[in-house]
């Protein structure tokens, strides 16, 4: 029992002996000594993303027989009643706006934190 009490006491003292050390410019000094940022990574990423998008579009165009499905669906849309067209346009607009809002809110909270 005494042994356990002594152990607990020692553990408590060891934990309490740790005090927070104020930054006092330490982080700034570390950041100053960091090597320069690796250049050219963002442009490379953009080029890769753009390239992959163009490639995927080209593949989709050829596989779909020169994009005939687009023409067919536009024709189908054109034959819909005006009210239906309005509902589809409104629904699509709302969906895109909601997704955009979510993205903006999540980005803002990331930046604020």
């Amino acid at each position, binding site marked *: 029992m005494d042994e356990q009490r*002594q152990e607990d006491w020692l553990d408590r003292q*060891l934990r309490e002996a740790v005090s927070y050390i*104020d930054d006092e410019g330490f982080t700034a000094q*570390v950041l100053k*000594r960091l090597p320069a940022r690796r250049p050219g990574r963002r442009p490379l990423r953009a080029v890769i993303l753009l390239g992959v998008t163009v490639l995927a579009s080209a593949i989709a165009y050829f596989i779909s027989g020169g994009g005939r499905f687009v023409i067919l669906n536009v024709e189908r849309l054109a034959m819909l009643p005006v009210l239906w067209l309005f509902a589809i346009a409104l629904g699509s607009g709302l969906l895109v706006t909601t997704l955009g809002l979510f993205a903006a809110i999540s980005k803002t909270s990331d930046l604020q934190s």
Partner: protein
Amino acid sequence: MELTDADLVARVLVDDDQHAFGELVRRHQSSVRGLLRQLARSDFALADDLAQETFLRAYKNVRSFRGEARFSTWLYRIAYNCFREHARRRKELVGIDEEQLQSEHDPQVADPGLRYDLMHALSLLPLPERTAILLCCQNGLSHDEAARVLEIPLGTVKTNVLRGREKLKKMLTAWGPD
């Protein structure tokens, strides 16, 4: 919403985001500097130099952090390696510079009393026991995490903690619970 260490590490990896790394430094500087101050027996200047070296190495080698352990555990490992390399260079792994300890001790533990005696007793422990005690009992690492930091077998960590505690208890008998 506060970003986790893993989120910040991801930003450093993907975007080379130095602000994200700065946040990681801010979060962990106190514990890393605290550990090094005690390993360096209260030589604050040396401890802070080693802490800077620790964070610079962490930045350069962030790709090798696989997220299997906590980021702080990974940092402790780098800090301990920095200290060990320095000690090897200066051959300070043995012996106690009592004068230096007297002149450069932490003002917060300078008051005569339990805290000072505890720090003094810690500094008298051999390095393996001192390090094991600091990591497990002060910084809250599990024995397993400490074994990974120190790159020694789990059993050795447990033995070092046990021996260190026994010695501390003996040295602090006068302060013990009534």
